[in-house]
C-alpha cells in the first residue's frame, strides 16, 4: 500500500460521503458546496492518475459552476437555506432501494472486471500529448463545440435581455392582431404573467394544492412584503 493507494482510498471515500450528504442536508448552499467537495476529490484523484490537467481543470470548472449554481438557487428557489426542513423526493423508499442496487451493481462491475495495468511512464509528456490531441486529431470536435457553446451563451443573453427591438420586453410588446386593429393574436398570459414563482418548480408541493398557485393572477396581491400569509399552502399567500 503506497501513499498513492492511501490517498486514493481517502479521496474516494470522501467523494462518496460528500456525494451522499448532498442529498441529506436541507440547506441548498451546503448541498452545492458539498457537491463541489465531491468533485474536488475526483479532481485530485485525476492528479493521482497523471491526468494533471484534467484534474486541475475539473476543480477549476466545478468551483465556478457550483458557485453560479448556488447563486441561482438562492435567487430563484424557495427556502434556499433549508430553514424549514423539506422533503423533495418522490417515492422515497423505492428510490433508496434503486440507488443501493445500482451502487452494488456498479461497484461489482468495477471490482470484478479485470482492469488493465498500464502505468504512465514517468517522463511521458502528458500535457503535450493532450494539447496535440486537442488541436490536432480532435480539433474539429473541440473547436465546433467551443463556437457552439459561445453562440448558445450569446443567444441566451440576447433572448433574456429586457431591451427588445420594439421597446422594453415587459412593456407588453405583443404580436399584431389577426385583423387590423384587432386584439393581439395568440394566447393571453393570465394576470401578471410571470408569477410562476415559488410554486413553479414542479412537484415540490407534496402538500398544498398545486392548482392553488394559479390563484394569484391578480398581480397586486403582494401587499406586505415579507409577510407570509401562507401556512403550508404556498399557493395561497395572496389570500
Amino acid at each position, binding site marked *: 500500500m503506497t501513499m498513492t493507494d492511501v490517498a486514493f482510498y481517502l479521496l474516494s471515500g470522501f467523494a462518496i460521503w460528500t456525494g451522499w450528504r448532498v442529498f441529506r442536508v436541507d440547506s441548498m448552499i451546503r448541498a452545492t458546496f458539498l457537491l*463541489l467537495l465531491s468533485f474536488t476529490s475526483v479532481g485530485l484523484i485525476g492528479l493521482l492518475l497523471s491526468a*494533471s490537467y484534467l484534474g486541475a481543470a475539473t476543480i477549476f470548472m466545478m468551483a*465556478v459552476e457550483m458557485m453560479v449554481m448556488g447563486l441561482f438557487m438562492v435567487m430563484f428557489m424557495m427556502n434556499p437555506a433549508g430553514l424549514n426542513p423539506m422533503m423533495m423526493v418522490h417515492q422515497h423508499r423505492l428510490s433508496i432501494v434503486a440507488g443501493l442496487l445500482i451502487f452494488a451493481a456498479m461497484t461489482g462491475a468495477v471490482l470484478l472486471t479485470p482492469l488493465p495495468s498500464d502505468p504512465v511512464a514517468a517522463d511521458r509528456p502528458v500535457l503535450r500529448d493532450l494539447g496535440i490531441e486537442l488541436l490536432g486529431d480532435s480539433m474539429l470536435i473541440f473547436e465546433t463545440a467551443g463556437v457552439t457553446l459561445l453562440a448558445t451563451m450569446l443567444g441566451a443573453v440576447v433572448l433574456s435581455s429586457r431591451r427588445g427591438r420594439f421597446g422594453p420586453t415587459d412593456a407588453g410588446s405583443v404580436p399584431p392582431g389577426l385583423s387590423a386593429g384587432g386584439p393581439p393574436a395568440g394566447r393571453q398570459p393570465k394576470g401578471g404573467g410571470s408569477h410562476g414563482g415559488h410554486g413553479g418548480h414542479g412537484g415540490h408541493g407534496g402538500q398544498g394544492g398545486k392548482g392553488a398557485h394559479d390563484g394569484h393572477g391578480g398581480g397586486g396581491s403582494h401587499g406586505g412584503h415579507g409577510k407570509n400569509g401562507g401556512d403550508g399552502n404556498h399557493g395561497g399567500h395572496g389570500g
Partner: protein
Amino acid sequence: MSLIVGLPALLALLLIGLWAAAALDTAIGRLIVGRPVGMAATDPLRAVVADYLRQRTDTEAPDHLNWLLAPGYYFLLAVVGLALVPFAPDQSLIALDTSVVLWGAAEAVVVVAVFLHGWSPNAPFPLIGAYRYVAIGLPVMLLSMFVLIAASIPAQSLDLRAVVESQRGLWNVIRQPLGLPLFLAVVMSLTLRGPFDYADSADLAGGTSAEDGGPRWIAWQTARAAMLVAACAIAATAFLGGYLGPVLPGWLWLSLKTLAVMVAVVLLTHLVPRMPVAQMLTLIWIVLLPIAFLDLLIAGLGAL
C-alpha cells in the same frame, strides 16, 4: 523539494509576509493621510492581540460550520498558492506540471470561500457583499487565466517553474507589458481590496465581515493578508522573474519582488475609488477582457 524542508520555510515566509502586509497597509495609509508613520510596524500586532482577547459574537441562526471554516478555506488556498511558487530552480513545494491551472482553481475556490463567509452570518449586509462579490470575482478570474496563459507561452509549459526559467533572457513584464497591470487587478479582487472590494466594503459597513467580532475578525483578516502574500508571489513569479537575479540568493530576490508588488497593490488600494457594480461589470467585460485577449495575442506573436 522535500516537505520537511519546504513546509517550515513556507510558513516562515508566510508569517513574515503577513506582518509585512499589515504593516504596509497601516504605514501607507498614514503616509497618504500625511500623518507620521509612528508605530505602523507594531500597531497591527497590537490590534491582533486585542481582538483575539475579545469575545466571539454570534448572530441568530447562522451557518455555524461554514462561518467557522470560511477563514480556514481562504487561508488554505493562500497556502496552496504559495506552495506552487518556485523558490529556486526546480524547487517548489507542490511540483506539478500544471501549476498555473491549479492556481486558477485556487482563485475560483476563493470566490466560494468569500461567498460562504458572507452567507453564514444570516444577516443582510454580509449576504449582499457575498453575492455582489461573486458577480465581480468570477469575471475577474477570466482575466487572470488569459494573462497567465500568455505568460506560459514563452515557457511552452503550464509549470510555474518553467515560466520562471523562460524569463532568464527577459522578464515577462517587459515583453508582455499588459500582463502585470491586469494581474494586479486580479490580486486586488482576490484579496478584497480597493476598487475591487465588493465583499468587505465600507458602503456595506464591512460587508461579509460586518458581523465578525474578535477572533473571527482576526481569522478573516489573517487569511486575507495571506492571500495577498500568495497572489503577489505568483505575480512576481509569472511576470517579474521569480528567483532570477544577480548576486543575491534566489529566495531573497523572490521576497523583494513580492514585497514590491505588495507595495503597488496597497498603494492602488488606497488611491483608487470603487465604482458601482454595473460600471465595474461593464469595465471588466468590455474593456479589460479585450485587453487580456490583446495580451495573449502579443504573447502568441512573440512566440512565432
